């Protein structure tokens, strides 16, 4: 899945992990699941702080995987394969779940930590969308910082049924607790 060059770069990043992280994967028997399996199996050996197991729950999209700090549930999940423009989001999510500090300002970090309530986000992205990563990365970071925030980033191209049912015509589209959020601020 990853070419030698990218692999090496990613490995260098994975050395910055401060805490053990766990990739929990949900596969089905599709080709895309096979691709995801390959990707995750390439990432796992990059650091001894990374472990990989399969998901028990039937309640998740397939293929998908969550990234967790071992012993806690961070609520960061990708449904689909975060390559293309989302590859950076994957790298950042691995790092931030692994305790690597984000570049956000201290003010915003505190504000996120103090958010009160349960926020379940779903973002539909496409691999060629240039302004999707900002949103995906923001919501992932919020999930890492606040246990009340959870986020699934979904590749719309892979989950066509949902996209049709929810009538999603543009990306990124963000849902909060099942409701569509206004796209432009």
């Amino acid at each position, binding site marked *: 899945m990853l070419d030698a060059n990218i692999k090496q770069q990613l490995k260098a990043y994975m050395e910055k992990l401060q805490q053990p992280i766990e990739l929990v994967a949900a596969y089905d028997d599709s080709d895309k699941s096979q691709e995801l399996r390959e990707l995750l199996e390439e990432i796992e050996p990059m650091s001894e702080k990374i472990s990989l197991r399969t998901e028990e729950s039937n309640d998740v999209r397939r293929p998908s995987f969550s990234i967790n700090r071992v012993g806690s549930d961070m609520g960061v999940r990708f449904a689909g394969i975060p390559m293309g423009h989302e590859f950076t989001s994957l790298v950042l999510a691995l790092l931030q779940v692994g305790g690597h500090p984000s570049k*956000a300002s201290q003010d*915003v970090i505190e*504000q*996120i930590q*103090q*958010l*009160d*309530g349960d*926020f379940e986000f779903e973002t539909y992205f496409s691999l060629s969308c240039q302004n999707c990563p*900002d*949103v995906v*990365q*923001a*919501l992932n*970071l*919020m999930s890492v910082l606040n246990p009340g925030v959870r986020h699934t980033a979904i590749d719309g191209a892979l989950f066509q049924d949902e996209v049709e049912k929810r009538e999603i*015509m*543009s990306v*990124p589209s*963000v849902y909060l607790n099942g409701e569509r959020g206004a*796209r*432009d*601020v």
Partner: protein
Amino acid sequence: MTLEEIVSRLDTKSDEKEAEKINQKDAFEVLVIGGGPAGAAAAIYAARKGISTGIAAERFGGQVVDTMGIENLISVPYTEGPKLVTAMEQHVKEYDVDIMNMQMAEKLIPATKRGMPHEIRLANGASLKARTVVLSTGARWRPLGVPGEVEYRNKGVAYCPHCDGPLFKGKHVAVIGGGNSGVEAAIDLANIVGHVTLIEFGAEMRADDVLQKKLRSLNNVDIITSGQTTEVVGESGRVSGLKYTDRNTGENHHVTLEGVFVQIGLVPNTEWLKGDIELSQQGEIIINDRNETSIPGVFAAGDVTTVPYKQIVISMGEGSKAALSAFDFLIRNSVDESESENEAA
């Protein structure tokens, strides 16, 4: 959508904290509502007079945030919206201006007595007070309200022909609206694009005769009257066509094209002012040549007003004028605080 914007939307508590902070502020001498070119100019002109100045805006930058290329800001041959917004903000920050971003004004409560402070209620429940107010809440394009319009906004659906027209060089576009702005847009566009289809809802175009004549003389323009646009259709993320119904026959038609320019007018952001200040039939704040409104001490500038021609340079000029008028008002109505308080008591 940035991290900050997402967080501030969720953080209702920060709203409360913010509201508390705002409530404790002293009355401003000039309070500007709206942070587009008009508001930014007004704030700078007021602050340069050395009077206490605040600016409250729902979104600093206004319509300029959404603009791509800008080629008619005199002395700046080319810039882009977001760049101009950053420059405007930096310029405002050169001065002692209290910038209150992401604050939505909900009500204006005029002073009961000339020279006394007006009150502005904000959506977060807080109130601001000011001896003079400059209203510069701008305008937004009136939307068509048909399926596809929102999805393909900036992907073929456009609202500003002289801004975005050049992006459609050689292509087929539609102009919706046969009023002056629609017909002018169609004439303008016909020079640039390959073909223009103008769709007017009524049985006849409403534009001035000279404009209509000019339009009819162009050989790459079709005019459809009694046409009700029903949908903007797209393919792989961009506009690919438009559907309309012929209101005479009830027949549905599809036109294959790459761009749709919606020209059915602007809506001034004055809903929150209705009943408190004199508005024109179109909902614009009525001003005179000194930017005075129907309320003494309340001025208005830019796209939100009856000023003809809505442009960035014009809004900047108007904002500057409004601030100077506000300053003039303050000098002429300087009241001794203690005296007026005694009177009020």
